[in-house]
């Protein structure tokens, strides 16, 4: 499949926009946290600090420089992996973040691996038998999951699997997971919750993408010439729906970013989101900024990826 020059120009444009967005977003994150009332030096030293000590610390931290040059310094630091030190426990933010990032990514990877095949099967099946009992059941279920907050899905999962069935431990994350079964049990609840949240989005979008393709004249033609419903969808519609489906997958994976914040808090899972929520409670600014940037970057890359896939798979731009 050859892509025309226009396609690459469009993709380049999209990447450029993503980069500009990233700069604006980091600008927003920096100034939202930096412009807050209350002096960082005073917060650090506590109420008993003398004015001289505060002035000294301000000088040492470079707080007297203009905000914009501090922003540039901060941005440069981010790019080179220097994220400053945590105010609260005086550890390099990179070290704190690095330890937690692995946990969060592992959770996201497991959810993605379960979610994608499951959601694609459900979505395509619902589209194939549009209007059937299966389709309606799937629609009602996904709408219900989308209309309620993530923590409610988590609450429901705990009620069902821990309280009523008693299969899994409630609200606890066993870091000392020694055996394989214990490991599964520790991961099960966060994974179930996130899978529900993300799959619901993915199923809806996949179904919509496939149905849009099914409604085109050439697919109708396939049905008219006598192809079975299954063949019509799998052979004629699906290849052309692949682009929109991939777009839907990337877009719904971006719901992981919001979902993971709630889920890690509910289940006490030691990931980046829990780190950030704790940092908000203690107003640990460098940590909040860095965590926020981690989330924004992952979110932005997912939605950019979705757009790029949509551009690349658009047959009208093919040579």
């Amino acid at each position: 499949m050859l892509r025309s020059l226009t396609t690459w120009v469009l993709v380049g444009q999209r990447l450029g926009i993503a980069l500009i967005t990233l700069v604006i977003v980091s600008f927003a994150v920096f100034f939202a946290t930096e412009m807050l009332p209350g002096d960082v030096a005073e917060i650090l030293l506590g109420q008993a600090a003398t004015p001289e000590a505060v002035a000294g610390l301000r000088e040492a931290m470079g707080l007297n420089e203009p905000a914009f040059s501090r922003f540039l310094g901060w941005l440069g630091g981010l790019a080179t992996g220097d994220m400053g030190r945590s105010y609260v426990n005086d550890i390099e933010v990179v070290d704190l973040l690095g330890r937690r990032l692995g946990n969060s990514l592992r959770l996201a990877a497991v959810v993605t691996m379960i979610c994608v095949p499951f959601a694609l099967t459900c979505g395509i099946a619902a589209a194939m038998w549009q209007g059937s009992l299966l389709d309606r059941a799937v629609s009602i279920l996904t709408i219900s999951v989308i209309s309620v907050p993530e923590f409610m899905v988590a609450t429901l999962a705990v009620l069902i699997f821990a309280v009523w069935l008693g299969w899994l431990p409630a609200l606890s994350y066993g870091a000392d997971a020694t055996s394989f079964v214990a490991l599964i049990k520790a991961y099960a609840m966060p994974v179930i919750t996130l899978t529900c949240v993300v799959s619901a989005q993915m199923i809806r979008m996949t179904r919509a993408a496939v149905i849009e393709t099914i409604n085109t004249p050439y697919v109708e033609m396939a049905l008219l010439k006598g192809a079975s419903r299954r063949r019509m969808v799998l052979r004629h519609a699906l290849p052309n729906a692949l682009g929109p489906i991939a777009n839907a997958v990337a877009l719904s994976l971006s719901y992981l970013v919001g979902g993971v914040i709630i889920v890690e808090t509910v289940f006490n899972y030691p990931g980046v989101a829990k780190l950030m929520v704790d940092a908000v409670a203690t107003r640990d600014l460098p940590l909040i900024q860095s965590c926020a940037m981690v989330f924004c970057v992952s979110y932005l890359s997912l939605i950019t990826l979705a757009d790029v896939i949509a551009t690349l798979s658009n047959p009208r731009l093919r040579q």
Partner: protein
Amino acid sequence: MIDHHDTPRGLRLPRFGYAFNMTGRIGLAVILFWAVIAIIAPLITPYPPGEIVDWDYFGPVSKSYWMGTDYLGRDILSRVLMGARYTVGISLAGVTLACAGGIVFGMVAAVIGGWFDTILSRLLDAFNGIPSLLFGLVVVAAVGSSIPVLILTLAAIYLPGSYRFARALAVNVNTMDFVTVARARGEKTGYLIRAEILPNILGPVLADLGLRFVFIVLVLSGLSFLGIGVQPPHADWGGLVRENIEGLSLGAPAVIFPCIAIASLTISVNMFIDNLPKKIRDRSQ
């Protein structure tokens, strides 16, 4: 003060003579029910919502406590009724600000066009690149949590989306002949957006407002659940779930009922919007 908006909006639609199907009516009934509760909550709470009335914490559903008691022994029914004020009120104020801002900016951008449109669209698109819950976390971490801050934050989160939607509709209307005629007549931008564009995008824009209301309820509940939304001793529904999350492993009704309240509101708004007559909902005009 902010609670009144819902009732006229809900009542106005049938008066125009639109017919609703059964699902839509149930949705509307639940929405009106919560709107009324939000207004009259202090009059009908069986106990003062902040008072400890039962020595037993996480008490079960009983005759005197219809929804059980919470982690301190306060009556959950009273707290859920009062919580409706915060959840419905803050969300409604947030969504009104977000949509009013989004629609006005969207129409102005569509009518003026040119560099104004380009810059505004790019800028607001960039803000769409921040996950909503995260935006709330960062702002509240910076400014501290209070009800005006919450309302403004929620409005800021959903303004870009509303802008994008209203602008897309307004751009279509803007190319219609009657707008060209009005422009040739020498009408000002203010007149164009008020008299020519707004009436023609109102239906879909109101439907969009309903959907955005659901998102705002979800984000507000999420923020309160994380402990940075409505601050104790007051509690919205998300805050009630947070307070009583310890009771989850006991299967306490104190966790379950606030959850049901949130779900009933968001699901019925979705049901109502999904079943609006095509005339109102149609987004392709």
